[in-house]
């Protein structure tokens, strides 16, 4: 597939923006401005961006707890995202959700998720809705390598397969659950091999190569739109930071982390574009700066947003 320059620059911008969001998240955390928990996807940006680059308006996305860059790539409003992260009234969830539950259901982003694997069964329902409407919409369902050992994974992929639902299951394999390496969590080498259990195609790609992700997911989406059913795409990648907030990294070595940091998906994509001559270093620097500024302005927005009003605490449990 050939992708035009502006689109690729847009991808780079999304990756930088996701990165900047999370760098800021870390900073806010250190400043004690964040009460709750968060999960950073630094180092995994190509997976989120490459995947979502392949969808179109009207499609659905089911995110994960490690979903900031997924949201950015989806095109979430940074102000409302940051406000939600900071628990403010102007946030996507009016401060009720926080990092783990940012959602824009009306727009098709059906939410980040606190239950590992908990979004996978939802995809089956989304698939049924689409089937019923007879549109060419599709649903992208993200989950991690760890989630692939939940029963939810098994039941959902099977149901999606027998009904040929238009779903692309995207496994962001960052090599670890919380602390468990996939080598200890499963006795196989590739999660995509599990697709065979459901009679659907499975493929593993270099998840730090945004183009590779885009192409693999794009193929799967083409199948899905054509009524040929679901696929499983495994993006091999790595998270640079600890599991949540911070962790002591007792379960992995500094060398391993350093090795993967050298495979930075942003540096790599940017380097390619510069090498190809479609981007200059100065342009790249500008994109990075713009991203940081956008995030800083989002923090300003969020800072200015009021706390949710305690008198509204009971709202939103039921549709009255």
């Amino acid at each position, binding site marked *: 597939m050939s992708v035009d320059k502006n689109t690729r620059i847009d991808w780079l911008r999304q990756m930088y923006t996701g990165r900047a969001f999370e760098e800021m998240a870390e900073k806010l955390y250190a400043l004690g401005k964040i009460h709750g928990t968060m999960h950073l996807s630094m180092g995994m940006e190509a997976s989120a961006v490459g995947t979502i680059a392949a969808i179109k308006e009207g499609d*659905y996305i089911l995110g994960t707890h490690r979903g900031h860059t997924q949201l950015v790539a989806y095109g979430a409003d940074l102000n409302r995202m940051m406000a939600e992260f900071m628990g403010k009234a102007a*946030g*996507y*969830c*009016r*401060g*009720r*959700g926080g990092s783990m*539950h940012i*959602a*824009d*259901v*009306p727009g098709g982003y*059906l*939410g980040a998720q*606190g*239950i590992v694997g*908990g979004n*996978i*069964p*939802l*995809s*089956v*329902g*989304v*698939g*049924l*809705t*689409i*089937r*019923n*409407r007879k549109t060419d919409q599709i649903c992208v369902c993200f989950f991690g390598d760890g989630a692939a050992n939940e*029963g*939810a994974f098994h*039941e*959902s992929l*099977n*149901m999606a397969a*027998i*009904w040929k639902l238009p779903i692309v299951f995207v496994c962001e394999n960052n090599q670890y659950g919380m602390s468990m390496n996939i080598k200890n969590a499963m006795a196989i080498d590739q999660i995509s091999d599990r697709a065979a259990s459901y009679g659907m195609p499975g493929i593993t790609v270099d998840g730090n190569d945004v183009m590779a992700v885009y192409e693999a997911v794009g193929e799967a989406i083409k199948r899905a739109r054509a009524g040929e059913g679901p696929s499983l795409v495994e993006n091999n990648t790595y998270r640079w930071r600890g599991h949540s907030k911070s962790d002591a990294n007792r379960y992995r070595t500094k060398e391993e982390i350093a090795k993967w940091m050298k495979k930075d998906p942003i540096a790599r994509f940017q380097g390619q574009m510069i090498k190809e001559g479609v981007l200059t270093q100065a342009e790249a620097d500008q994109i990075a700066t713009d991203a940081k500024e956008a995030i800083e302005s989002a923090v300003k927005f969020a800072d200015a947003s009021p706390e949710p009003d305690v008198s509204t605490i009971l*709202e*939103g*449990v*039921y*549709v009255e």
Partner: protein
Amino acid sequence: MRELTFLEAIREAMVQEMRRDESVFLIGEDIGVYGGAFGVSLGMLDEFGPERVIDTPISELGIGGAITGAAMTGMRPIGEIMFMDFMTLALDQLVNQAAKLRFMFGGTTKVPFMMRAPIGSGAGAAAQHSQSLENWYVHVPGLKVVMPTTPYDAKGLLIASIRDDNPVIFFEPKLLYKKAKGPVPEELYEIPLGVADVKRKGKDVSIIATGMMVPRSLEAAEALAEEGLDIVVIDPRTLRPLDEETIVKSVMKTGRVLIVHEACKTGGYGGELAAVIAESQAFDYLDAPIVRLAGKDIPIPYNRTLEYNAVPQVENIVAEARKLAKGNV
């Protein structure tokens, strides 16, 4: 008015709603050509086809997700779980997803599904197919919980449940499917959720009963009428939201209350009912302690006699209500 069984009333409500509203579909295990384990959906596949009467693999969690995801995106699914005991396997989707999504997402979504499941003992199916765990669902904000006990109520409540914009858990006392028969209007009608029904008026004791205990309490009340006692029987019908007013008013009149449910006593819905009464203005009118008559705190045994003795029967209700009425609790 023509009479239908409980099962027929449920089926008719589903069929008529599915004719009326394209976004309603039924999904569950063996609900298609088999018609469901109890035959509730028999014939529906023929009318609506396999895209609206969807047989699933044996994957309860998947069913829970399917109805939640479909409801979030615009459908009004009816999920069926073959026995409420198996809902344990779908709970993450019902409780951590369906019930919470709206609140967690700041009110920007809704999950208008209903999940149907047969409930209760008496069919000789032993411990894993006979439970009454309705209070689990009552305890989850975001869910509504309905349990009808007559064909008329079943149809009206089912229609209201389908049309409700929230996730509704709908329990069907399985012994009623073929045994309960009564008048049911042919047209569509709604019985609003959250409104109790006084199934029998009286003045001596208020019985608050749920599920199978409603017909048994009515039978007990008839028996006691011959002894000159005049017993109220109230069926909350919707367990959440509860119609507290109807209950509190009745207790203020009678001063004596007997709560009857089939579920195990400890931790059950009777506790909620007792507490609601004990913290209400009815407290000052109570002439006797609040009594709970409930299932024994055991799994349901297979043997017919043990099973019979595991949950309240008419004679137990008669005995407790009589004691209460006569003031010798």
